[in-house]
């Protein structure tokens, strides 16, 4: 129990430190704003984002009725943009969580047991890292069929090796430390050592990985959806751009592409800032250098 309290205290310290970092603060604020939009989407929308307004309200410019105008099927662009935040954050958070879990588990096992097991696992990791990421995701998404859960699966399949590698090298150094040796000498089992002693020490690193992976996952979903591999039952920003692009009307209807592009760009840039801030504050000696 006390271990959990220490861990939470450490994470809280990191978070406070993050808010003193300029880029970190911007990232957190923008992320929270998008989070609020995603959660309260049903209250912020004006009409059902996938209800078509055929045949009367096709491609109407922004007005008091349709704040951002309508698309080629008469659907409200404002409401689509609002719901797009939901898809982005759902894919980002779930994709990152799944990837971090897989990567951490693999990294813990490889780093802790070492020897032949480590060798074999790292060969597999190297193999996956060698594959071209976007083509792999495109092919898997095309074969598995368009659904949001398949996109999340595809993202985890593509990104887990990076997390596994980072976690493994951390585990290698942690397992040599005195407190692990002490536990081992009093007869702690492998499972207790891995999950009780080592895991709590890689948790901050898992969070840092998660930030990077949220960004990657949102990016990947946007690209896949833009390439026509999005889930047809939901509307994401990438899909809105795909519709605009494929309709051939994009260049005559600027109001159609500005909201989704602005959303993707603002969210991804602020997440990148957040990632930079997190890697800054986790560098050894950051706190001291800042006199904190």
């Amino acid at each position: 129990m006390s271990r959990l309290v220490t861990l939470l205290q450490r994470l809280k310290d990191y978070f406070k430190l993050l808010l003193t970092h300029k880029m970190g603060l911007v990232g957190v604020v923008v992320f929270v704003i998008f989070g609020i939009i995603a959660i309260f989407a049903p209250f912020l929308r004006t009409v059902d984002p996938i209800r078509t307004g055929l045949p009367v309200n096709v491609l109407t410019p922004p007005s008091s009725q349709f704040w951002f105008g309508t698309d080629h099927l008469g659907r409200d662009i404002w409401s689509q943009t609002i719901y797009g935040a939901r898809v982005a954050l759902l894919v980002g958070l779930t994709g990152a969580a799944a990837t971090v879990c897989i990567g951490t588990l693999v990294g813990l096992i490889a780093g802790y047991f070492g020897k032949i097991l480590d060798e074999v696992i790292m060969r597999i990791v190297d193999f996956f890292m060698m594959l071209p990421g976007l083509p792999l995701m495109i092919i898997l998404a095309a074969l598995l069929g368009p659904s949001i859960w398949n996109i999340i699966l595809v993202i985890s399949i593509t990104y887990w090796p990076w997390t596994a590698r980072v976690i493994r090298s951390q585990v290698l150094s942690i397992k040599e430390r005195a407190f692990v040796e002490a536990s081992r000498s009093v007869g702690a089992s492998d499972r207790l050592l891995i999950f009780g002693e080592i895991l709590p020490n890689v948790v901050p690193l898992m969070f840092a990985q998660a930030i990077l992976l949220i960004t990657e996952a949102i990016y990947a979903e946007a690209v896949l959806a833009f390439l026509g591999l999005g889930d047809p039952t939901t509307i994401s920003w990438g899909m809105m751009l795909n519709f605009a692009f494929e309709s051939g009307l994009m260049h005559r209807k600027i109001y159609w592409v500005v909201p989704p592009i602005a959303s993707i760009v603002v969210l991804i840039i602020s997440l990148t800032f957040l990632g930079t801030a997190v890697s800054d504050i986790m560098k050894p000696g950051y706190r001291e250098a800042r006199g904190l």
Partner: protein
Amino acid sequence: MALKGFAGFAIRKASGAVITIFVIICANFLIFRLVPGDPIRLLFRDPRASAAAMAALRARFGLDGTLWDQFVAYLRQLFLHRDMGLSFVYGEPVWDVIAGRIPQTLLLVLIGLFIAGVVGTLLGAMAGWKTGTKFDSVVVSFSLSMYSIPTFAMGIILLMIFAVTLGLFPLGGMYTRGADLTGWAYVRDVARYLVLPTAAIIVWYLGQYVIITRSSMQDVLDQDYIAAARTKGLKESTVLRRHALRNAILPVVTITGLDLAFAIAGVIQVETVFRWPGIGRLMYESVLKRDYPVLQGLFLVFAVVIVLANLLVDLTYGYLDPRIKVGGGS
């Protein structure tokens, strides 16, 4: 291991690459056979097609017999005839379809890479030289932003500003259809179409070069020989040009071409947005038309190129690094 020195190192690395490529080929074969549903039935939804006609189609695309038979036939075709099957859409050999698109992609990527490399290296070196100044922080946050914007979004932004609003460049494609230009007129025509997609590639790559050169420059500036050059009383500009820049660029050169997966991802997006007829656009078209043999072929080509590029980099490092020459370690 009996083999020592660079030869042993090279053989180990090369055999590793061969094994990787073979595993990729097997995985590539299997992935596409695991498609739920019969691809032939999906593609040719003609209820009047006779059983015999369907069987003939299956044989034509190498989809008859047991999975093992198909696998053996696939390998034999691939290794003996360099044949990756027939495109569902074009009905031509997959390799011919892909090869026809490669020059356009190289044209786009090489020009973009070159400009991004030169400009990015200079900007990054300047930023590293003036670490902590206003110039440095502007360059870094600008590059970081440009670098993180999804490439297809950047493409659409460029398209909307320079092609739609300002009307300076065409909306997409590679040349004016129906104009039948030749000679210089054709080159000038293609160049107009080339500007925006190249700009999208440059914007993407620039950030990477800036960040890498900047940190490389910071490392170099900490070295003793820079301090020595300064104590000799050399002018700052001389120290920068003769000592710092030259050494800072070295790691950047080796990094160029290393991150091919990154380049491939960018090319797919840029070519799609600008309808540039290269292999990236081919991938998008094949997804839309579910042309599985072409997708399979493209994946194989991308993967093999990446494995070979990595091998080349490993061998170069091994050749340059005396520890590997002597010790033969991995």
